[in-house]
């Protein structure tokens, strides 16, 4: 019985992965119909990263460390954030598709399909050009990690934990975005809400240790858990195993994921299919 359940679970995962692959391939084909625009977006992404690095270089020209973070360590936070951000755009388009589907009443087409509507609404607007974000972030990461002077074993262990924490960070940011986007079930036009997500997440590009105020720290660890997006993975990559941080990150990711799912289903029950 147990074996059957496990088999069914893996079959479901396989199905999801196949659909994800198809959705991403079709989005890539769609985006490549306008190659010039695709190319310019990639250029824009490179520029964005270059400007961020220039900014950090400029401010670190006046100080050796900021809240205990040296230049190369702060760049690891930047790279970590960019990897998560890149995955968010490249796989689920920062859930722009969810807002669009609610606003234009397109959610109906996902609801009638025999696959989870949240999943379909999430992956239907992936932006494949944002893989450039992941690639540039990885390039940046490979430039600064050697400055940490880790042994091969440390690099392996810290790197593995770092990947787990990045996944937790992705899960948190996805859940947070889903909760915010689901508000659209009540407000219909939720595009302004994007500004809220974007502006809030801007702060995650910096090590959250700079927020010395206790109330702000609690806010960024629980209500809007920015700390776990890039700072915690970067800390583990730099300093190694820290059970408290790792368990907290995984727990926060789980709680947020379950919360967002509940909120999505609650919102869905209020869906009016306007303008469909």
């Amino acid at each position, binding site marked *: 019985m147990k074996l059957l359940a496990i088999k069914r679970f893996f079959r479901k995962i396989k199905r999801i992965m196949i659909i994800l692959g198809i959705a991403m391939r079709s989005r890539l084909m769609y985006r490549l119909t*306008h190659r010039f625009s*695709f190319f310019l977006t*990639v250029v*824009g992404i490179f520029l964005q990263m270059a400007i961020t690095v220039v*900014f950090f270089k400029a401010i670190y020209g006046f100080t050796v460390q900021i809240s205990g973070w040296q230049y190369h360590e702060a760049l690891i936070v930047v790279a970590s954030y960019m990897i998560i951000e890149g995955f968010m755009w490249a796989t689920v388009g920062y859930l722009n598709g969810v807002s669009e589907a609610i606003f234009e009443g397109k959610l109906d087409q996902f609801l009638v399909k025999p696959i989870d509507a949240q999943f379909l609404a999430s992956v239907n607007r992936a932006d494949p050009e944002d893989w450039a974000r992941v690639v540039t972030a990885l390039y940046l990461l490979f430039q600064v990690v050697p400055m940490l002077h880790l042994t091969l074993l440390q690099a392996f262990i810290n790197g593995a934990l770092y990947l787990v924490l990045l996944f937790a960070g992705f899960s948190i940011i996805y859940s947070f975005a889903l909760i915010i986007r689901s508000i659209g079930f009540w407000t219909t*036009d939720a595009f302004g809400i994007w500004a*809220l997500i974007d*502006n809030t997440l801007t702060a995650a590009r910096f090590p959250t240790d700079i927020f010395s*105020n206790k109330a702000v720290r609690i806010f960024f660890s629980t209500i809007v858990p920015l700390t776990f997006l890039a700072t915690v993975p970067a800390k583990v990559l730099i300093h190694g195993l820290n059970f408290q941080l790792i368990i907290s990150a995984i727990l926060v990711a789980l709680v947020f994921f379950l919360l967002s799912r509940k909120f999505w289903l609650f919102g869905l029950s209020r869906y009016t299919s306007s303008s469909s």
Partner: protein
Amino acid sequence: MKKYLLIITDEFQRHLAYRANITAYSIGHIIDVSAQVIIWSVIFSQVSIIKGYTLTEMMTYVVFGWFFQHASSNYNFEERVARDIERGTLSSLLIKPISYLRYITACAIGRVGFAFATVWGIAVILLLLMHDRLIFNFNPIILLIILIMVVIGFFIKLLFSLIIGLFAIWVVEISGTYFSLNIIAKFLSGAMFPIALLPSFFINLTLLFPFAYTLFVPLQLYLGKISIYQGVIGVGVELVWLIILYGIVKLIWHFGLKKYESVGI
């Protein structure tokens, strides 16, 4: 003129319909400015002056810079123009007794008017919270020059949007173009961080483009880092750019209409 006033009012009211958006934008702005204030406060806890900026000057740059930025923003009108072309809705506007370019300008004025009204509310909150950490300059001449710069800056950004948007007549999809160009424009304007932090040759280079005059230069004037005379020259440079961009828009519109295929109707 009356019909354009109606378009401005209509655009203003359209945005009022989505109050949740206003709330979200407002909270987002407060978080954005607060995060920048905290970041700069931490940096300034270790140094007293960065490239001639004190903590108070930097706080003023962040808060007033944010205000200028939103008071002169183009609010992605390039996307709207491109959508009109891509979906063929431009055709229905062309047959009406209005000028499309003026119609878009009226919409943009309505949009920025709405944003301005919202931003004022947040600005008051920020000023109350941070009044002891900001510099207040009440020199009427300086304030007048800044006002002129911000207004011209708004039209420069709008014309820039129109140029990008009208390119949709030839290339259809312009999201990549405006994404990249907006990053450059934002960077050159000093909205991401003061361009004074960069090497001097770079500052001189940015002063050749119109974007620095929409944010960085007015703020330098406000902070007393440049003279009134230099501010007036800044207005002059802005006006030259305004004329150049207007000419480009007219040229693109002239040739674009010949190419326009009215697809989608």
